[in-house]
Structures are given as structure tokens and as C-alpha cells.
């Protein structure tokens, strides 16, 4: 395994460098003429655009129809800057222009990302489309951008970088090539850091991501801003490649063009993006002789491709680049440090538990949806290390109580006290970080992530390294990632799941998926664990096993457990206390025995009840 990795790393890094040296030499010798070199530049710019769009659309999973808008902001900003600094050496003004273009585009990305807080799916897509068009219309009507005629006579990199045209073309290639490499590796490393895991977890399941402690809003904004930043840089490069910009160039169709590249390559696959950008930019050039048929062939291919390979060329798979980055990093450390870094284990949160106080307590908690009272006057409490059941007929409001406790719904009345502090009105991820973790009735795993990664997402907030550290893979990154790797594997070992650590979550059998969800909840190191029908769909043996597991969890992780369950054998078997909920009200509380004999409960479950029936039903 390690040997394979080293091999592919060597091949890839050498490939990158050798390609560069080769192309650079050929261009500066004039063997690759302007036609091919300018095509090459176009390909590289398209790669930057596609890979950056893949960050929002592929990794974050939000459809963005306005990526060309960001590109135009960057392009115009950069073009205006170099044009207004004619006396500065071009290399310097270009650097300033590209950075400024990226930053202004990032600002726009941030502003457009804001609606992402409220909107989802197609509606978000429409907003991005709208913003893209607004940007275009505004550019069209400004004087500084040259109006519809566009911004002309921007210094061109193929000429302005050096005296000799060949040399200038070669330097242009070098600049664009290495920017492309940096952008691609950045997005790649970012994608594989804790920040990337957070972004992908949002795509996989936003509700679960929030419940696992991920500040989803922040990460949506982060992804939009980064993607816009890179698109802005690509725009700046485009401006200085062509030498002129027109607003029409950056219309809706341009955004679609990049989106097509992302989807054809495979959403979330950076390698796929690179391949499809390369093919889709060069192909029209090769098909030039078919002139009129070109677009027909293109669109037909698009439709057929989607029908026969709907998840794109590469799906979410990556080429061996993965290994490259990992090994490149290892090499760096071997060369410069020679010392194994110590893993930094995630800190264990300390919970201040007072002996006589419950860890979790609700006071007259309730919620109304419009006129419907879904829960009212809920008073429940959990003592430390206690296992408590929450039962009730279907539609009684059990899951609603869980949603109130975890901040999915904001209560309209009452209060929730966790370890002495009110957590009412906090967002889900904050509550998770304050010590309440949960599982879901309908399993919500991050399906296309591996078992290990599912667990690692939950460690997110107990790591400190910044997105930048993640991109450059600093020491902090390495030691923290190493630390959670150790912890995550330990956790899996406790649940006997070590052997499936690298399997995709959705390939697990049902019982293991349930177990993994519990495992993930525990990874955030909670004080209170809420289990929503953990035994649903399990057979008798599995349920028995689950009962043991739950008891084991309580002692080992020192948590209080509140569980919703219909399986009375399980509830009666392990719960020290039971609350019974009906029509949004607590109708009974007590030990298993007390509940089994409570007349109200029997009525709630069976309507009119008879003595002997109830025993069979409940035990």
C-alpha cells in the first residue's frame, strides 16, 4: 500500500514538473506556436473555473448558475487595474490585478452566498442566476467598464511579459500553469481537511451535518467565497490573455458551459473536472471543420452522456492525485523536519455536573406550528448516566421533543436547561457542541463518505486549524488530523467496526448503519445522547445486542441517554425511567413497572383496555 502510494506520488509530481518543463521549453523555442499555446492557456483557465465551481456545486452540493458572473467581476477588476497602472512593471501590476480581481470576486461570492443561508436547491440556483445577470447588466451600463463595447486594450500576457514574443508566451504559460496547479491543489487539500469534510457533509445531509456540530451557514459561505475567489483569478487571467472583455461574454450560457464541464467530469471529482475542461475546450477547436454541425454534436453528446453516465465521467472518484499530495507532504516533512510530529489528540470537553442536578431539564417546553400545538408543557429531566425512555403512540410528538432539544425547531414556550444553562434559541450545531448529540429515526449518514470520515466529521469543532492551514497542510493540520484519526479508530474499535472503516457508509448493512450513527453521535463527546428509535427494523438478536451496546455506552462514555423506542422489550429492559407522551403532553412518568400498569398509558396505546391485554402489549 505505502509503496504504491510512493510510486504514484513520484509519477504524478514528476509528471507535473516534466510537463511544465517540456511545454515551457517548446513554447519558448517556438515549437508550440501561438495557436496551440493560446489554446493551452484557455484550457488551463477553464480548469481553474471548473475546479472552483466544483467546490460549490460538487463538494457543497449547491447548484450555482452564476459562476461566470464571478469570473467577469475578477476579469474587469484586473483589467481596469493593469490598464490604469501603465507605468508599473507589468509583472507587478498583473500580480496586484489578479489578487484584487480574486478578492473583489470573493466579496461578491460572500454577498451572493448570504441568500444561501435561507434558500435551497433550485431556488438558490435561481438566485445565483439572478445575481449573475445583475452583475452583467450593471457592467454593461457602467462607463468604467466600457459599457457594451467592453474593456479593450488590456495588456496581453503573451506580449507584455517580456521583450521577445516567444519568451513572453512561455512566461504566460508558466504563470497560468502554476496558478492552475496551486488552485487545483488548494481545492484538493481543502477538500480533504476538516473544512472540506464539513462542506461535503452538508452536501450529504445538511440536517445531520448541523446535528453533528457543523456550522453549515459558515461553510456554505466559505465555499462560495473560495469558489468566487478562484473564479475571479481565472477571470483576471482571461482578461490578460485576450486583451479585451465584453459583458456579453459572461452571460448565463457561459455559466452553463462551466456547469456542464463540472457535471460531465463528475460532481465532486476534481480529476473529472480537469479532464472534462480539457476535452470541452479543445474539442470545439478540433471540430472546427464541422462548423455548423459542431454544436449539434456537442449537445447530442451531452444528452447521451447524461443518459448513459448520469454521474459523469469520474463520479466522485479521484485519480491518484490523492496519493501525490499526501506523499509530497510526507516528503517535505522528511526533508525539512526529519522528526515525527506528535499527534495532537482532540480535547475532551469537561462537563460540570452537579450531583443533585439533572444534566438536562425542560421547563414547560412546547411548540406550536401555526395553530397546531405539537407539544405543550413538557417537563422532563435526565440525571447523569441515566437511561430514560420516551415512548408514546405514533404522532405523539416524540421526535418533535428531540427536535426541540436539539434546536432543529425553536420552542415557542418554555425553556431547556443543559448543565445549568439555558440553550433555548441556540442553533443545532451550537447545542451539539454544548453536549447534546442525537441520532435520527430515518438514518442520516453521510452516505458517500467512508465510515471513518463519518466519524471524523463529528470531531470538527474540537480541532482548531484554519482553512489556510488545511490548504498548505501545516504542522497544526497534520498533528490534529493524526490525533482524530487515532480517536476515530479507537471509537470504531469499541463498536467492532474497525474492519469497515474504509467502506462507504451506504454500503453497510442496516444494523451497522444504525450503529455508525450512534458512533458518530458519540464522537462529538456529548453529555446527553438522544437516540431516535435505535432498534427500528432490527430483529430480536440485533435488538438484544443493541441493548447491551447502549448499556456499555452509558458506562464507557459517561453519558445520559434519552431514547425513543417502540420496542417495549428494549425500553422496559434498559430504561431506568420512562416518560410517556401522547398528543404532545407527558401523560405518565415512572419506572418500567409503574408505566406498564398506568391506566392512562394503557388507554393511550390501546384505547379501552383490559387487564390481561395490557401485559402482553407492553411486555
Amino acid at each position, binding site marked *: 500500500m505505502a509503496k504504491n502510494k510512493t510510486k504514484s506520488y513520484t509519477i504524478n509530481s514528476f509528471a507535473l514538473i516534466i510537463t511544465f518543463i517540456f511545454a515551457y521549453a517548446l513554447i519558448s523555442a517556438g515549437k508550440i506556436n501561438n495557436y496551440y499555446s493560446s489554446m493551452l492557456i484557455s484550457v488551463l483557465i477553464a480548469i481553474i473555473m471548473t475546479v472552483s465551481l466544483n467546490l460549490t456545486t460538487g463538494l457543497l452540493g449547491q*447548484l450555482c448558475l452564476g459562476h461566470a458572473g464571478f469570473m467577469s467581476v475578477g476579469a474587469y477588476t484586473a483589467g481596469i487595474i493593469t490598464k490604469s497602472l501603465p507605468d508599473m512593471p507589468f509583472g507587478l501590476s498583473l500580480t496586484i490585478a489578479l489578487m484584487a480581481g480574486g478578492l473583489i470576486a470573493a466579496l461578491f461570492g460572500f454577498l451572493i452566498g448570504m441568500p444561501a443561508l435561507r434558500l435551497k436547491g433550485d431556488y438558490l440556483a435561481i438566485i445565483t442566476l439572478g*445575481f449573475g445577470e445583475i452583475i452583467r*447588466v450593471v457592467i454593461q451600463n457602467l462607463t468604467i467598464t466600457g459599457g457594451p463595447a467592453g474593456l479593450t486594450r488590456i495588456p496581453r500576457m503573451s506580449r507584455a511579459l517580456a521583450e521577445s514574443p516567444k519568451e513572453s508566451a512561455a512566461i504566460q504559460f508558466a504563470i497560468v500553469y502554476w496558478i492552475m496547479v496551486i488552485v487545483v491543489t488548494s481545492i484538493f487539500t481543502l477538500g480533504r481537511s476538516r473544512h472540506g469534510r464539513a462542506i461535503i457533509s452538508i452536501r450529504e445531509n445538511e440536517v445531520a451535518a448541523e446535528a453533528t456540530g457543523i456550522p453549515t451557514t459558515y461553510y456554505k459561505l466559505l465555499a462560495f467565497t473560495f469558489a468566487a475567489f478562484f473564479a475571479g483569478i481565472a477571470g483576471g487571467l482571461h482578461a490578460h490573455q485576450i486583451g479585451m472583455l465584453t459583458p456579453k461574454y459572461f452571460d448565463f450560457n457561459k455559466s452553463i458551459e462551466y456547469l456542464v464541464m463540472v457535471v460531465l467530469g463528475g460532481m465532486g471529482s476534481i480529476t473529472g473536472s480537469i479532464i472534462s475542461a480539457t476535452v470541452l475546450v479543445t474539442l470545439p477547436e478540433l471540430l472546427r471543420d464541422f462548423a455548423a454541425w459542431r*454544436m449539434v454534436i456537442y449537445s447530442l453528446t*451531452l444528452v447521451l452522456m447524461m443518459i448513459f453516465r448520469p454521474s459523469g465521467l469520474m463520479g466522485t472518484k479521484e485519480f491518484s492525485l490523492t496519493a501525490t499530495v499526501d506523499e509530497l507532504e510526507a516528503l517535505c516533512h522528511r526533508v525539512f523536519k526529519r522528526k515525527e510530529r506528535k499527534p495532537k489528540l482532540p480535547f475532551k470537553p469537561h462537563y460540570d455536573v452537579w450531583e443533585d442536578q439533572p444534566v438536562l431539564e425542560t421547563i414547560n417546553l412546547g411548540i406550536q406550528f401555526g395553530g397546531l400545538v405539537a407539544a405543550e408543557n413538557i417537563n422532563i429531566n435526565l440525571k447523569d448516566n441515566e437511561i430514560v425512555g420516551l415512548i408514546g403512540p405514533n404522532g405523539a410528538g416524540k421526535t418533535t421533543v428531540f427536535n426541540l432539544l436539539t434546536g*432543529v425547531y425553536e420552542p415557542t414556550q418554555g425553556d431547556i436547561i443543559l448543565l445549568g444553562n439555558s440553550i433555548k434559541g441556540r442553533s443545532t450545531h451550537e447545542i451539539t457542541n454544548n453536549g447534546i448529540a442525537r441520532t435520527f429515526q430515518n438514518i442520516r449518514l453521510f452516505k458517500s463518505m467512508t465510515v471513518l470520515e463519518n466519524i471524523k466529521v463529528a470531531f470538527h469543532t474540537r480541532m482548531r486549524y484554519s482553512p489556510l492551514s488545511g490548504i498548505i497542510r501545516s504542522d497544526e493540520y497534520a498533528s490534529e488530523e493524526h490525533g482524530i484519526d487515532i480517536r476515530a479508530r479507537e471509537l470504531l474499535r469499541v463498536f467492532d467496526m474497525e474492519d469497515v472503516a474504509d467502506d462507504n457508509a451506504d454500503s453497510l448493512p442496516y444494523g451497522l448503519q444504525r450503529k455508525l450513527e450512534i458512533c458518530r453521535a458519540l464522537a462529538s463527546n456529548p453529555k446527553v445522547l438522544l437516540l431516535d428509535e435505535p432498534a427500528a427494523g432490527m430483529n430480536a438478536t440485533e435488538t438484544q445486542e443493541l441493548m447491551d451496546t447502549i448499556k456499555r455506552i452509558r458506562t464507557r462514555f459517561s453519558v445520559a441517554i434519552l431514547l425513543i423506542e417502540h420496542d417495549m422489550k428494549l425500553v422496559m429492559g434498559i430504561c431506568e425511567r420512562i416518560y410517556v407522551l401522547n398528543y404532545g403532553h407527558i401523560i405518565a412518568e415512572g419506572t418500567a413497572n409503574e408505566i406498564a400498569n398506568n391506566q392512562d398509558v394503557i388507554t393511550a396505546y390501546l384505547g379501552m383496555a383490559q387487564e390481561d391485554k395490557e401485559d402482553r402489549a407492553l411486555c
Partner: protein
Amino acid sequence: MSLFINQLINGVHVGSIYALIALGYTMVYGIIRLINFAHGDILMVGAYTVVVAIGTLGLSPLAAILISIVICTLFGILIEKIAYKPLRNSPKISSLITAIGVSMLLQNIALLVFTPTPKPYPVPLSVEPLNIGGIQVSFMTVLTFGVSIAIMLALQAFVTASKAGKSMRAVSEDVKAALLMGINTDNTITLTFAIGCALAGVGSALFCLAYPSVSPTMGSLPGVKAFIAAVLGGIGVIPGAMLGGFLLGIAESFTKAYISSQLSDAVVYGILIVVLLFKPSGLLGKSVREKV
């Protein structure tokens, strides 16, 4: 004041056309959650059908328009069967890209067959404008408005009362459940496409009577506008599409008249964004809470 009323009438005219096209968008979206980008191009198919029917085959205008509606419907069914049906269980974005592909395909085939030069729409309709209290209302405006309102009412009645309409609503709620209830979901979806595209055919005739120039890319702009109208009103809701269409038309007209004709598009998109920020599922859309 008369200027204001004239601009209102202008807005209503454009709005009726947007609304009519938006109805088709909304129905298709409602049932399979697909933004059918090719919907606008069905408009173009209808328009060229009329051009060919009258110019080459020498049919009467009315016959040509009726045939064009049939052709639009057939195209809708065909596109659904060939391009969208195989993708029903694929990620949503694949269907979206397919829709874009179909749209590009239709446009480019039209470019090849009919050349890019715009052709005049060969149905002359010159009826004297009606004069109501000093305000001129063109016959086309009245016709367009009347037809779109009538179609919306008919459609609403169809969807709420008829058996097929009920199946449609069932499928749009939950395809699998509908299937289990014995609804032929495939046929229902096809029927939805057929109706949506027939509406695009009607829209095509009204659009071309108002703007009598036929070109391969003529469908994309009204397509996008109608789509915005559908979203504005709450996509998937029939009266919403109508409301969205009229609002968009009137907003455009007033923006051009009183704010800035240069920035009218930006203003329209701005309105859309603001509405979505405050009502994330459109004006009449039901906000759907994700079941946790």
C-alpha cells in the same frame, strides 16, 4: 394617468404570455422537480411549424396554429420519453444538464435547418385597437389576456377535479406512493409533459402574434422570463405561475417606464431575489419543512 394605464396594459399583455409559458414550466417542475430548460425552445418549435405549414404546405393560419400545438405536444412527449425518462432515478443535476442539452440541441438543429436569419411569422392579424375612454387597447392584448386566464382556470379545474389531474397531484406529492396506489406514474408524467408543451404551443402562437419574428433562439429569453415568473409565484403552483407572470410583466413595464429602461433586467432580477429572500418558496408556494 393615461400613461400609467397604458403601461399597465403593456405589462398585462407581456405578463399574460409569461404566465402562459410559466404554466407549462410549473406543471413539469411540480411533477418531477425538473427545470425544463427546453420548454422555451418548444415555443420555437411551434413557431417554425407555423412557418413551414403556411409557407411550404400552404395551409390556412388557423390550421397551421392547431397543427403547431399538436407538434409541440408530440415534441414534449418525445423529449420526455427519450431524454428525461431514463434519468428519473439519477441525480437531479443530471436531468438539469440533459434539459440544457436538449435545449441546445433543438436550437442548433433549427439553426441548421432554418438558418439564423429571422423569418416573419406568417399570420397577419390586424384588428383595429379597441378604444376605451381614450385609452387604446390592442386586440392582441385582450385576446392574450383572455386566453391565458381561460387556460389557467381550465387547468386548475382539471388538476383539482379530474381523475388524471388527481393522479398528477398524487405523483407530484410522492412518486413511489402514487405507484403503490395503482397510479400509472409513467403515463401521468408523460401526460403532464404533453399538457405543458401544448400550453407552450398556445403560448407560441400568442407570442408570435405579438412579436412576429421567428428565429432559432427566440425561445430562450421568454423561457427564462417565464421560468422566473413561475419561481416568483411559487413553482409547482398553478395560480402562482399566473400571478408570477402578471407581476413580472407589470414590473418590467413599470420599471422601463418609470425607473430605468437600461437597468430593467437588473431590477426584475432584484425583485425576484428580494421576494425569494422573504418568501423562499415564492409568493404562493407552500413552504416545505424538511421532516427530521
